[in-house]
């Protein structure tokens, strides 16, 4: 429990002699205007509190759907190309019962929106606030009604001549296929709720034998790139270049045998097909991006005296680059000037920078010369 709330109440009570706490933070925030509240208060609750007046027909919804929704969700709301399906998997019997049978028997592995949602308000609210995908909050209220009506029509919940309004939407709710499909009867809503499993913290002889139930399936073996490139190339472990377990396909029976047989270091105790010599290199060096010459000019504070384009104390790098354009000896010359210092070409004197690494000087000079290439 956060104690500050109580503290403020106490402070307010004692300092102001009032039960109100609204004056503690003088000068902070301001009262919202009615217009501001109505601009942002767009949520629609399951009991339709908050739904605005309006209407939309199935036919209007069909037009909007074809132009603004079908490219992602499919012509019939069935597509799984981009998002999960909106329509499908519900029946007239589901509408009567308020339970979607396909959720129980698993006959529709891809659960559609109409299979899942218990409250029609949720569909209305979400389309209103977040659709279309790349232009959310651009539908008018009537358009939202129309699209919702069309979705329900595609799901055989509303007839083709239906006009959905704020007045009849609560009636339509009574036909939603999964309206009775939700339960809040579990211990995971409240922090102090109780879990639904009862594992015990056994320490010794907890199981008789290890039973493998699943290993990485073939389709997942190469799907995540080179694991070695996703681990450090040094440290306690390395990432694998290629998962050998995937190459050798140890099956569950082999694993069960191997992991329930006392291991002998000569290898005779294990019948693992996957066991073979450790002969392959275990780490892949990371791809190293060297700091660019331009970045080094900043890191080494060259830019304190030289602007990238214009003179500050010394000439601008663009000017230097232009001067030496097409001069094959420029790189060697400039490396010499940076390293040992120089004067007489531009105003002033370039001090020597022999303390810089030769490779860095070369890289910086090359990047300057590249400006005019």
């Amino acid at each position: 429990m956060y104690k500050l709330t109580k503290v403020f109440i106490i402070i307010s009570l004692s300092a102001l002699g009032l039960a109100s706490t609204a004056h503690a933070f003088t000068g902070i925030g301001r009262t919202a205007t009615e217009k501001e509240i109505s601009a942002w208060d767009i949520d629609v609750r399951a009991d339709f509190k908050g739904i605005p007046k309006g209407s939309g027909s199935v036919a209007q919804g069909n037009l909007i759907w074809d132009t603004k929704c079908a490219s992602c969700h499919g012509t019939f709301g069935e597509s799984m190309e981009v998002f999960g399906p909106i329509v499908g998997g519900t029946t007239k019997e589901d509408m009567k019962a308020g339970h979607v049978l396909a959720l129980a028997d698993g006959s529709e592995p891809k659960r559609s929106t109409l299979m899942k949602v218990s409250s029609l308000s949720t569909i209305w609210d979400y389309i209103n606030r977040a659709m279309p995908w790349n232009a959310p909050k651009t539908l008018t209220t009537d358009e939202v009604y129309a699209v919702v009506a069309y979705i329900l029509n595609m799901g055989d919940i509303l007839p083709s001549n239906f006009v959905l309004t704020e007045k009849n939407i609560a009636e339509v709710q009574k036909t939603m296929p999964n309206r009775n499909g939700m339960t809040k009867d579990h211990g995971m809503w409240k922090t102090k709720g109780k879990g639904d499993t009862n594992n015990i913290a056994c320490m010794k002889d907890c199981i008789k034998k290890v039973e493998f139930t699943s290993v990485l399936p073939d389709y997942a073996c190469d799907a995540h790139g080179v694991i070695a490139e996703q681990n450090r190339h040094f440290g306690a472990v390395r990432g694998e270049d290629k998962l050998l377990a995937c190459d050798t396909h140890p099956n569950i029976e082999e694993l069960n045998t191997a992991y329930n047989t006392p291991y002998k270091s000569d290898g005779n105790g294990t019948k693992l097909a996957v066991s073979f010599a450790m002969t392959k290199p275990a780490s892949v060096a990371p791809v190293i991006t060297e700091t660019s010459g331009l970045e080094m000019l900043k890191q080494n504070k060259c830019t304190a005296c030289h602007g990238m384009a214009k003179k500050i104390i010394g000439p601008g790098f663009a000017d230097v680059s232009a001067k030496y354009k097409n001069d094959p000896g420029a790189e060697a010359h400039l490396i010499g000037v940076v390293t040992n210092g120089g004067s007489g070409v531009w105003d002033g004197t370039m001090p020597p920078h022999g303390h810089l690494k030769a490779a860095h000087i070369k890289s910086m000079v090359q990047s300057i010369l590249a400006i005019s290439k």
Partner: protein
Amino acid sequence: MSNELKKPGRIIRAPENFIDASLSQAISKDGLNETRRDFLRKSFVAASAVVAGGAALTKSAMAATFEGDPLILNHTEYDQTLGLPVAANPYGVPSKYETNLVRRESPGLTQVGGASVAFSPLQGLFGIITPSGLHFERHHQGWQDMDPTKHRLMVMGMVKNPKVYTIDDIMRLPSVSRMHFIECGANTATEWGNVAVPTVQYTHGMISCSEFTGVPLSVLLDDCGFDKKNGKFVLAEGADGSGMTRTISMENALDDVIVAYGMNGEMLRPENGYPLRLVVPGVQGVSSVKWLRRIEVGDKPFDAKDEVSHYVDLLPGGMTRQFTSVQESKSVITTPSGGQVLIGKGFYNITGLAWTGRGKIKRVDVSTDGGRTWRTARLETPVLSKALTRFNIDWVWDGSPAILQSRAIDDTGYVQPKINQLRAVRGTKSIYHNNAIQSWRVADFGEVTNVQVN
């Protein structure tokens, strides 16, 4: 920087001392080419034969030819040149050698990058704080980098005085700083039916832990004079395209929910809700609404899309659990973990993370034999409520096959379940809240892979 640094020598794992010193030096210096690799293979076979025959390469034989590591005997480019000046990188960046550990997508999980997940690389992280740039990402309609001077928070609904706050206002208020994990309700979702992904980044990488700074939501609710009698729930809404909305119980709202702007000492990162987000400790991440712009006090839950269509748990029999919010006690070994390989027999520090949305972690046990026997791990401090807790335990790997597991127990006494125990109650279709014990199989050649065992 010289070119040879672009290709540091590959480091090989192998039985100790199975290669001779000159080859070792050649590999250290010039890396592992095909000739040397082939030679290594032959050496290994020879060494294995020697070991199998009961003999071993003697240390004295090694000492005769090995004068020392050239990296020690010779000067380096680092110790004989001048380094870079201060503030060369005004906002510091990781070493150029640290490019492997980054947020990654799980291919095929989603079709649209704007409604997807980037997983945190748990396999290489230390301690309990996730670097801000590696905090997992989950967006519902893409992320935005919002101008903080144009951001507003409105608190309205069942309040005496509905108010609008600017970020200036929020940052003037009394602040708290607390470390909490944020875990997506769908973390480990791929593993409900069977093993499906290779590494801990993809099995468990939708969790991160940060120190968040902000104003307790209770302060703002009080400031607006919320209805203490009838206000039972609050709706939190985001300013992004999805207008993300989630219902939070008043009990939680008044307990420890933070309206946060700070994260690990700096402002929130854009991907994590800059400039303002909700942090609902212990509850699935979707409730910690990013780009927070509105709080509404109400007397009923709001039944938003992500509490009716998604973030609900389908049970066997067809009923769906709604408002399954709490992230129950869970743990995972992060090193060694799936896709990794041990670099030889001998000592390892098994390390991992444990957490619970119900309070603090009390204990973590680790098994290296697939759950036959368990030992209690060391919990590193701090052990904080609704935060990640780091555990460590010693392990000497003798080269035999092993199965590594960790089991978290929280201060309510709840013990992290086995996957078959979870399935017995919830089946395999509930997507969310898979907090099962994770098993990593260590093969006798050191490779660690994701498996499920009973």
